[in-house]
C-alpha cells in the first residue's frame, strides 16, 4: 500500500488530466463542505439554546404546594398545606440519588407592591429565604461581596444578597452597597453581596431578586417550619424524572395527601423539558447528516464514474501489466487506492474550507454581537473523524465497481485494444 511506485503512479494518473480531476474532486468536496456546515449550524443552534439554559442544573425539578383535591384520612378536600423543613431530611433519607435539595420561602414580587425600603427609595422585589446550595442550581455571578453561606444559616444572620437590578433602584451610582442596610417588610437586612444572572438575557425580573438566609428569613417573617418551594437536583446519571414520584410519595405521606392526588403537588420538571430540547437537537443532527451524506453521495458517484472512465482509458496499460505478471489483486488495489486517495484529498479540502467558513462566521458573530438562539457554530474532532470515515468508505465504494471492471479485463483482449 505505502510504496513509492504506487504513489508515484497515483499522482501521475490524477495529474494527467487536471481539469477532470478537479471537477470530480469538487463533487466530494462540496458534499463534505455542506455536511460540515450543516453540522456546525446545528451545533450553533444547540449552543444557542444551551446558553439560554446556562449552567442551570438541568437534572432538577421545582416543586410547590397546591390544594389537596381529594379527602384523605379525615382531611377535607380543598385543604391548603405547606411543606415543612423536616420534609427535606425525610426526602434525603428515603429517596436514593438526590444531590441537592434547596427549600425556599418567598415574599413579594417584582411586579407587586413595594416591599423594600432604603432611606427615601423604595422598590418591589422578589425576596427569598434560601440555602447556599441554590447558587449551584440557579447559577449567578457574584459581582461584589459574597453569597449566603452556612454560617448565615446557622446563626440566622439577617444579611441579603441583592441583584444588580435592585442596586440600580435603591442606590445612587457611586454609593457603596456592601454593609448598608435595606428594610424588607419592615425588617432590616445588611447587604453583603450583589449578583448578576448572566444567562437570563432580557429577563428583567431575574436581576430584581433579594436572597437572604433561609433561617433568618423564616424567623423574621414568621414562617415557622413552613417551606413554600423546593428545588431538587439529582446526582449525575440519575434522571430526576425517574425518582420524582418517590419524592412525591414521601411528601404525600408527611402531609396526609391521598396517594392518588396528582394535583396537590405542583412541579416543573426541567429535566424532561430539557430532554425534549435534546431530542430536537438529535433531529437536527440527523437531518444534517442525512442531507450532507446525500450530497456527498452524488459526489461519490461522480468519482466512481470518472474511475470507470480511467479504467477504460487504461485498458491497454492494464493488459500490459497483466501480461508482465501483475496479479489481479495488484490492479484492484491500485484502482481502489486511487479512488480513496482522490476522495480523501477532496474531502479534506472540504473539511478545511468548511472549518475556515465556520471560523469566518464565528468572527462575524463575535464582531456583530450575540444573536438569539445561535452561538458559536463549531465542529468537533469527533465529527471530523466521522466525516473521514465516511470518506474512506465512500472512496472504497466509488472504486469498487471500476476495480472489478479492471480485473475483468482479459489481458489478451486488452492488448488488442489500440
Amino acid at each position, binding site marked *: 500500500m505505502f510504496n513509492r511506485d504506487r504513489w508515484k503512479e497515483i499522482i501521475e494518473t490524477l495529474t494527467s488530466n487536471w481539469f477532470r480531476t478537479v471537477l470530480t474532486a469538487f463533487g466530494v468536496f462540496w458534499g463534505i463542505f455542506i455536511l460540515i456546515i450543516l453540522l456546525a449550524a446545528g451545533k450553533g443552534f444547540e449552543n444557542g439554546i444551551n446558553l439560554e439554559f446556562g449552567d442551570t442544573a438541568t437534572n432538577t425539578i421545582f416543586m410547590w404546594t397546591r390544594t389537596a383535591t381529594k379527602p384523605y384520612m379525615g382531611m377535607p378536600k380543598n385543604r391548603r398545606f405547606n411543606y415543612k423543613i423536616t420534609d427535606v431530611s425525610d426526602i434525603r433519607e428515603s429517596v436514593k440519588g438526590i444531590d441537592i435539595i434547596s427549600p425556599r420561602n418567598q415574599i413579594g414580587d417584582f411586579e407587586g407592591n413595594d416591599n423594600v425600603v432604603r432611606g427615601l427609595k423604595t422598590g418591589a422585589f422578589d425576596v427569598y429565604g434560601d440555602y447556599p446550595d441554590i447558587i449551584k442550581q440557579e447559577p449567578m455571578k457574584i459581582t461584589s461581596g459574597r453569597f449566603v453561606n452556612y454560617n448565615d444559616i446557622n446563626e440566622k444572620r439577617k444579611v441579603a444578597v441583592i441583584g444588580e437590578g435592585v442596586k440600580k433602584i435603591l442606590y445612587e451610582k457611586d454609593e457603596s452597597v456592601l454593609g448598608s442596610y435595606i428594610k424588607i417588610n419592615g425588617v432590616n437586612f445588611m447587604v453583603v453581596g450583589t449578583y448578576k444572572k448572566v444567562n437570563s438575557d432580557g429577563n428583567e425580573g431575574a436581576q430584581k431578586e433579594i436572597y437572604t438566609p433561609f433561617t433568618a428569613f423564616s424567623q423574621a417573617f414568621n414562617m415557622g417550619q413552613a417551606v413554600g418551594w423546593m428545588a431538587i437536583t439529582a446526582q449525575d446519571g440519575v434522571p430526576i424524572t425517574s425518582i420524582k414520584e418517590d419524592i412525591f410519595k414521601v411528601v404525600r405521606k408527611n402531609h396526609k395527601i391521598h396517594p392518588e392526588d396528582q394535583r396537590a403537588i405542583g412541579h416543573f420538571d426541567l429535566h424532561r423539558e430539557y430532554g425534549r430540547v435534546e431530542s430536537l437537537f438529535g433531529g437536527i443532527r440527523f437531518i444534517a447528516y442525512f442531507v450532507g451524506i446525500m450530497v456527498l453521495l452524488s459526489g461519490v458517484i461522480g468519482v466512481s464514474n470518472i474511475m470507470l472512465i480511467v479504467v477504460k482509458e487504461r485498458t491497454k496499460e492494464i493488459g500490459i501489466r497483466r501480461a508482465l505478471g*501483475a496479479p489481479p489483486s495488484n490492479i484492484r488495489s491500485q484502482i481502489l487506492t486511487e479512488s480513496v486517495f482522490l476522495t480523501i484529498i477532496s474531502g479534506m479540502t472540504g473539511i478545511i474550507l468548511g472549518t475556515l467558513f465556520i471560523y469566518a462566521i464565528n468572527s462575524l458573530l463575535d464582531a456583530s454581537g450575540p444573536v438569539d438562539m445561535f452561538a458559536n457554530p463549531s465542529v468537533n474532532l469527533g465529527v471530523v473523524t466521522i466525516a473521514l470515515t465516511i470518506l474512506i468508505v465512500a472512496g472504497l465504494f466509488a472504486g469498487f465497481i471500476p476495480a472489478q471492471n479492471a480485473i475483468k479485463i482479459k489481458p489478451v483482449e486488452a492488448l488488442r485494444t*489500440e
Partner: protein
Amino acid sequence: MIEIKDLHKSYIMGSNSLHVLKGIDFNVEEGELVAIMGSSGSGKSTLLNILGMLDVADEGSYTLDSVPIKNLNEKKAAQYRNKFLGFIFQSFNLINYKTAMENVALPLYYQGVSRKERQEKALKYLGQVGLAEWATHLPSELSGGQKQRVAIARAMASEPKVLLADEPTGALDSTTSYEVMELIQKINDEGNTILVVTHEEDIAKMCKRIVHLKDGIIEKDEKIEQVRASEYV
C-alpha cells in the same frame, strides 16, 4: 522446454463457431529459436497467446519447463507469466508515462524485487540492448527500433525461460527490423529459448527452425540454416 499435445481452440462468433487451432502437436527444446509462420487467420497469434497463458486452450495439454499449465486462476497465471515468460509485442506496448528504465523494471516490481535492485537490473538490461544512455527517456522520445529494444530489455529483465515475440518487426522498417533480429539472435546465442511469430519470410529465415501454420494445423516443421542478421546491417 515447451511440449504441447493435440491443442484445440475455437472462438464463438455469434452463432458460428470458428475452429482456429485444430490439433497442434509441437515441442520446443531449450535454446531453440523458432519462427512460427502463417498467413493471417492461420492461428499463429492464438497459438502464441495460449503459449503465453494469455488465453486458454479448449483441449490438449501444455507443459512448460515440466510444469503442466492447466486450470490456472488469474493470480497463478500472472505468477507463471512473470516467472516463465517474456513478451515482445508488435506495437511495443510500453507504458507511455514511464521512463525506459521504469518500463524495464516493471516485471521485477511484480516479483517483489527491491527498488534499488530493480534499477540496477533494469540498467544492466538496457545496457545489453545498447540503450543505457536513454534510461530516463519516455517512450515518446524514442524511435521505433529503440522502443522495441526497450521492450526486449523488459522481456529479458525477469530472466524468463522463454521469450515470446509476436511480430516483433511488424511495425519497423527493414533496417531496424534487422537490428532487432540481430539482438534477438544474440540473446538466443546466450542460450535463451525464443519463439517468434512472423509472416515475413526474411525474418523467419533468421531463426533456426520454421513452423508453418495453415488453417489451424502445422503444415510444415523444418530446421533451417540460420541467416545471420548482421550480414544485412
